[in-house]
């Protein structure tokens, strides 16, 4: 079975909610919709305080090339446009809407009918995806319409679909692959059409045999689509690692996947593309896994964007009294929330509740040069060394040692027996090297 070659770790999977079917969460009372739910330039609001909006209506426009439209996920009145603390912990502008009875914008097909036929041209598909504000649903939230356009002079050979879900605890992609597989398949064929590729490979880790079986069966009816089971290893869901695992191509340092003829999309993104193109539905909801070992009912919820995290936790049995940390995303790469009212955004794949004793870091000791961080780094870097020189603010040296190749998967810090905050140090280094590069122009 295939996997990527360098590095990787095997954290405990803890997929408590993998058997829980997706439940639709009731609407929130107030929806807080951040203007920056994607990588790139924040969207510009096109509504103002006091406006009433319908579900699916455009409320902010992505005007730059790398940006994305934002639509109202609820029906109601805009009460204010203000700074809120979003799930990344930063204060960002958001449109706050007081929710009334759900009324969808005209033209959106909310039925369950599956429309398989698509005769749009690649340009029309890209336009549609752009218009409906689709972004990468795996967590990086890169605007999808950008990724569906092959730059001049480049050619895409493969569309790779990421159903790896290598993060422990998370099960939202797994449930999607089981419950929305047909729609996802149509979405994949639309993406293939936009990219003009003949072959699409869906990569799924071997801990989801039911999803592999189900998608394989469906794939028989879709030309050029195949399913590839992958050996379980974190971080296989990382774009470069997935490409290496599936087609054995190595994206050069600092380059994009298209350099080696690949385009990678998450399974959730394929579903969103289907809904945008075939049903005219903008990206206003998503599946979020809510889990934690002391949570009464770990679940997978279909949630409207802008719902406060606390509402999901309440629906999963309420916040346990021993809660020490709440994380947005997976336990390896997710961000700890500093406000439980932070809204669910397009890139929120999970809310994980940690108990007090799981929240503490192990005490830090001297580095004993065990070299475990080197052996697990999927990018072949030397995390202990990057951490050391970043700590000493030797940022030019950081750059020379390819600190920018780090994708912050956290494998180094995960294995470190001395409990050293390697990724914290590397992040600070990356921040400063990034600043240096920008200043150079």
């Amino acid at each position, binding site marked *: 079975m295939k996997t990527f070659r360098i590095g990787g770790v095997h954290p405990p999977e803890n997929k408590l909610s993998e058997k829980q079917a997706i439940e639709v969460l009731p609407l929130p009372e107030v929806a807080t919709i951040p203007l920056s739910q994607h990588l790139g330039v924040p969207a510009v609001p096109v509504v103002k305080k006091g406006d009433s909006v319908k579900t699916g209506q455009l409320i902010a426009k992505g005007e730059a090339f790398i940006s994305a439209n934002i639509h109202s996920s609820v029906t109601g009145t805009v009460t204010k446009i203000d700074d809120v603390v979003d799930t990344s912990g930063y204060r960002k502008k958001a449109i706050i809407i007081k929710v009334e009875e759900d009324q969808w914008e005209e033209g959106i097909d909310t039925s369950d009918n599956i429309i398989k036929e698509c005769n749009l041209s690649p340009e029309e598909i890209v336009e549609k995806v752009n218009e409906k504000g689709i972004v990468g649903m795996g967590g990086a939230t890169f605007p999808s319409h950008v990724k569906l356009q092959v730059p001049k002079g480049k050619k895409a050979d493969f569309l790779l679909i990421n159903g790896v879900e290598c993060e422990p605890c998370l099960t939202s992609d797994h449930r999607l692959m089981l419950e929305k597989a047909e729609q996802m398949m149509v979405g994949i064929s639309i993406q293939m059409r936009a990219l003009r590729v003949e072959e699409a490979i869906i990569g799924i880790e071997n801990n989801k045999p039911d999803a592999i079986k189900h998608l394989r069966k469906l794939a028989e009816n879709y030309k050029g689509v195949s399913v590839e089971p992958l050996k379980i290893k974190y971080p296989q869901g990382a774009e470069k690692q997935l490409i290496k695992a599936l087609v054995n191509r190595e994206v*050069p340092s600092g380059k994009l996947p298209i350099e080696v003829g690949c385009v990678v999309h998450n399974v959730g993104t394929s579903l969103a593309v289907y809904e945008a193109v075939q049903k005219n539905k903008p990206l206003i909801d998503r599946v979020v896994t809510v889990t934690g070992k002391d949570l009464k009912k770990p679940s997978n919820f279909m949630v409207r964007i802008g719902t406060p995290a606390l509402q999901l936790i309440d629906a999963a049995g309420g916040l346990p009294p021993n*809660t020490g940390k709440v994380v947005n*995303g997976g336990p390896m*790469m997710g961000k700890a929330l500093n406000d439980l009212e932070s809204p669910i955004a397009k890139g929120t794949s999970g809310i994980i509740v*940690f108990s*007090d004793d799981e929240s503490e870091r192990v005490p830090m000791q001297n580095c*004993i040069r065990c070299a475990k961080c080197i052996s697990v780094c999927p990018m072949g870097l030397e995390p202990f060394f990057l951490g050391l020189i970043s700590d000493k603010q030797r940022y030019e040296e950081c750059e020379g040692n*390819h600190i920018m190749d780090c994708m912050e998967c956290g494998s180094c810090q995960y294995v*470190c027996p001395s*409990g050293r905050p390697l990724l914290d140090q590397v992040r600070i280094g990356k921040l400063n090297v990034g600043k240096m590069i920008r200043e150079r122009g």
Partner: protein
Amino acid sequence: MSLLTVSGSPHFHADSSVRKIMYGVLISLIPATLVSFYYFGLGAIIVTLTAVVSCLIFEFLIQKYMIKGPITIWDGSAIITGVLLAFNVPSNLPLWMVVVGSFVAIGMGKMTFGGLGKNPFNPALVGRVFMLISFPVEMTTWPKPEPLTTQIADVVTGPTALAFASFSPESIPSYQDMFIGNMAGSLGEISALALILGGIYMLVKRIITWHIPVSFIASVFVFTGIVWLVDPSANMDPVFHIITGGIMLGAIYMATDMVTSPMAPKGMLIFGVGCGVLTVVIRLWGAYPEGVSFAILIMNAFVPLIDRGFKPKRFGEEVKNG
């Protein structure tokens, strides 16, 4: 509800710790320790205990009264230094020398540099070489193995196989005896079998990788093999060289000390080959019949340079499509 912790990812930590690694090494040392107890009896037990206890006490005293920092003597590293130091001395060594050696190992070899993780040289070897230079007679008078002996003083002493090789090759024990450990020598170096067992345990537990031991032993084998082929009458064969003296102990336990060895696989290979070549050079042309300790200490000094020169292979460094 109390305040929430907000910290950077990752939010999971592997079930690993310095203590676990160190106690893993100690478990792997059990076979070799038992063999030394079997062949050298009470003397071996007393020397080992003395070394371990004095290493612990010296580390404690230094941490408590000189550094005035946290006491970390139970992380296992001082115990390992003690055991390895004992492994490198004869079982009838006067105990005060063992205590002095432990002091040098812990005090000069380790704590001067800032404790575990900061020392450039293997502490046990620093102690051992100090003793070898200071007490050359006592350090090279080895008792003959006598299973389950309880005698400490007045044991029958004899030269090691390596020493035999230089003046009376016919008295060398059989390879089988040497492999099991039935020969004169330092406490822990006698049984290649027990050391290899311990090495396999550490490999399985992923405490060490194969790079250093294999390249070390292989380069000794190849180098002495060439010399032997050139003139079989004047030189011992390569099998003899790898199962005698401290090669096994050095290659499996001393050179692989993670603090004082390179971190990238390529660097580890260079380091292992360097140790092997230097050992053979010292053995064949040096003043001492045994060169492992010196070879490893010399290579320890090169580690920062090796680490700088040999980086791991990066992802996306060379474009390989296929």
